[in-house]
């Protein structure tokens, strides 16, 4: 589909963007007294279904479905959403491998992914039918399964699958003709690498672990990042400050939640230029990502409210909005 064919869809999205939550809406929700008040506020904005007694999870699931239905209706190139679904796809693989290789009762949650949902992924993994998986998953799936069966190392299994996911995202982004997808995947991989490096540094992981976990990408030198993270916190901070991630270092100094917020905001910044783009699939993909960000933010607020977090605690955790 060429860019000009998205003109109708982008115009529809422009009207829909008016209903996105703004930073002011998020601040209002953070100041509300309980989960019930937030749900009522969102229901007034058209969120969820018509059931007045719906729970927060039901409301968010309904919003997710609405977004996916809109994307299908707008006939966006399905390849774009296939790439955006990679994290969910790899998550399902991890869940199925762990479920198959352990005797514990199944408790892994699966995402709804076309062709690779709960039942399909369980069958593929239990029969080791790797050929049924997309090509970019096969090697990692076999390797992760082998690790779980031979040494029962769940963490190593996670590292193998997560690294394969990042490599697949980076490769798909580079191959894509869609500029937004290229930039989004690049930003996602870079931010995830930084997250991994920060966590590995805090838990004292080895250089070998970091080399295995970090995925090469265009905006990071992962060898230097791994070396810095395996040394000490000061080296990691220096690396971030010297390589264009000063804000990440500052957020890390502030608090772990400020760092998590920086990670998500950095990805949202990638889609912001789509607000002025009229003729391409970019604004539609940006709207989809903005909706995912909204749902994630509302989930954070609802969880924080039900656990008695203060307004300031919540504000520290909420993300920048696209709307």
């Amino acid at each position, binding site marked *: 589909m060429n860019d000009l064919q998205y*003109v109708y*869809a*982008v*115009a*529809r999205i*422009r009207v829909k963007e*008016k209903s996105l939550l703004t930073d002011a809406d998020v601040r209002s929700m953070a100041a509300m007294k309980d989960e019930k008040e937030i749900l009522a506020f969102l229901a007034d904005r058209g969120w969820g279904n018509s059931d007045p007694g719906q729970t927060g999870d039901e409301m968010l699931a309904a919003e997710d479905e609405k977004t996916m239905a809109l994307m299908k209706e707008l006939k966006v190139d399905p390849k774009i959403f296939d790439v955006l679904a990679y994290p969910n796809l790899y998550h399902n693989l991890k869940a199925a491998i762990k479920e198959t290789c352990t005797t514990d009762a199944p408790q892994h949650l699966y995402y709804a992914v076309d062709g690779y949902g709960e039942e399909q992924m369980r069958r593929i993994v239990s029969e080791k039918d790797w050929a049924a998986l997309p090509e970019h998953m096969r090697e990692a799936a076999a390797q992760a399964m082998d690790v779980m069966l031979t040494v029962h190392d769940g963490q190593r299994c996670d590292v193998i699958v997560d690294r394969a996911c990042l490599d697949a995202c980076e490769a798909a982004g580079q191959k894509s003709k869609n500029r937004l997808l290229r930039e989004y995947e690049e930003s996602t991989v870079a931010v995830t690498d930084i997250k991994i490096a920060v966590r590995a540094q805090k838990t004292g992981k080895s250089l070998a672990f970091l080399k295995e976990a970090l995925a090469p990408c265009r905006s990071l030198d992962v060898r230097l990042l791994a070396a810095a993270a395996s040394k000490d916190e000061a080296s990691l901070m220096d690396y971030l400050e010297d390589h264009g991630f000063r804000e990440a270092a500052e957020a890390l100094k502030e608090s772990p939640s400020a760092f998590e917020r920086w990670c998500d905001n950095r990805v949202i910044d990638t889609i912001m230029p789509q607000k002025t783009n*009229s003729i391409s699939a970019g604004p539609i993909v940006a709207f989809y990502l903005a909706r995912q960000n909204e749902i994630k933010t509302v989930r954070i607020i609802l969880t924080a409210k039900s656990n008695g977090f203060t307004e300031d605690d919540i504000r520290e955790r909420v993300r920048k909005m696209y709307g």
Partner: protein
Amino acid sequence: MSMGMVFALMGAALATALPGVGSAWGVGIAGQAAAGVVSEDPDQFAKVLLLQLLPGTQGIYGLLVTFITLSQIGILGGNPVTDTATGMLYLFACLPIAIVGLISAYHQGRTSVASIGLVAKKPDQFGKAMLFPAMVETYAILALLISILAVTGI
């Protein structure tokens, strides 16, 4: 028929054809955007319709120049063109609106799409949204004036 007449008719044809193509493209793409907005917010119909129509003016300007030309070269009136040099003069006189009409309609169509997006998000900014594509119109009007002056001056 003389070669002069052939050139003059070619000019008249280009004056209608090229801006017509540009306007059809511009109005078409702006129409797609307008339909997208109206499908979500029918109240914006009148505003987006005006924005859709803006790239259509170049086709009308081209038609006007063609009528004036035809009325001078013996088709709808005037004297038939008998020499090649006069025919070439009519052809060149028609080119400003033919070329500028095509290009400006294309760009005005794209600008109208952007303005329709602006109205979709902020309907109260309609006045400003109208100005952006209207700016492109300036150059089509300049070309129209030159073509009319040139054709009538031959």
